[in-house]
């Protein structure tokens, strides 16, 4: 399993159904026939896992919503995200891209 970092982009897995009712999240893992109820914070994190925003963006959003130290929040969110990946609720949205290589002879962008 790839390591979860603040730059990671995660999304809910295709077989995971998720809906929010009265600020609680209901998660259905269709394949396993398993249903979970998440508390408010976990629900917010699963909502943020849209496959577009990085974990760093989640942390920025959560800092505006909860009175918490950034360092502690970062550690907690990374740990929770890793747990959600391990439980099969989240997955990486895409492989982290390596910097684009320039073709030989095109230095300076003239090609």
């Amino acid at each position: 399993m790839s390591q979860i970092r603040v730059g990671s982009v995660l999304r809910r897995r295709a077989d995971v159904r998720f809906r929010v009712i009265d600020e609680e999240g209901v998660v259905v893992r269709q394949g396993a026939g398993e249903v979970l109820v998440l508390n408010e914070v976990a629900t917010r994190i699963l909502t943020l896992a849209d496959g577009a925003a990085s974990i760093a963006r989640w942390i920025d959003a959560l800092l505006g919503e909860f009175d918490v130290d950034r360092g502690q929040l970062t550690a907690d969110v990374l740990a929770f995200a890793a747990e959600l990946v391990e439980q099969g609720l989240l997955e990486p949205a895409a492989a982290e891209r390596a910097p684009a290589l320039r073709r030989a002879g095109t230095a300076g962008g003239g090609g």
Partner: protein
Amino acid sequence: MSFGARFLRQPERFSERPAGEPWGERELALELPGGPYRVLGLSAAQEAGVRATFPGSLLPAAGAPAAGAPAAPATAAAGAPVTCRLLRCTAGDFLPVDVRGWEYGLDFDWSPAAVRLAGLGLAARLDWRLGGAELGGVELSGALWTPEDGGARFPGVFENFLRVLVSYRLLELGGAVLHSAGVVRHGAAFLFLGRSGAGKTTVARFSQAQGAEVLSDDLNALLPHAAGCAVLKLPFTGDLGERRAARLPVPLGALLRLEQDSVDALAPLSRAEALACLLACAPFVNVDPYRRDRLEHVLFALAAAAAPRAFTLRFSLGGGFWSILDEK
């Protein structure tokens, strides 16, 4: 493992249509929730098996309620009968299965307009076709291929098929079949929800000992009702419940998620928790990827209607939980 590979010798030859050679020309009508269910193609021995297994649900061919059956079932909205056909196949179509120490579960294969299932002595399909009064409706029908011409195993085969058919039918009608113990006390129905091992039969036994009526300790139906929700008896029982008698719908007294504990206590369930509980306890349909939206819509409506009466029940083996429930 691919669909049917546990049970069928040639799953790739599973019929694409609900057609084949009927076992006979006998016909029965069953008044079960979501019905009536019209069963065609029965042999004489199969008919006898169905009659003996579901005597409280039999309707005469004309459609009038049989003696002992409810005169005005809450399922009247169902309208046209759901037709299911009994079709021949041979024992050689099935693989031998060593069932020692084995927990039986059917194999399913889903698509937008059909569900296929396979099990011990059972290959079946449910099909949805355009039809109904306005031709804008969709009609559900079933077909069951079995090598069992009556005999000791046939009732079990037929019931396993019927459990799935009724579950899908009730989903269409805004209701649900739920893994639960259903108990009637003081004119209200209490549904104790939980999967295998949660304690459904245990609480049903305690309830019975205190004079309550047990509907079933395995599967019960929950449907919307003028009073919120109503519980309907199903002839699908485990160790407790009288499958031979029919019963009118009973208004829901409480929806109770079971948790075994050393003390008896009651805690309210949120709507999210009630929905999660219903989702987890809706067999067959809750693993169908093509009917997720419908299931969530139906169960959310039921959870919302039941929410004021939805609780987690922590119960001990002392059996004192009814004193708490009676106070509510």
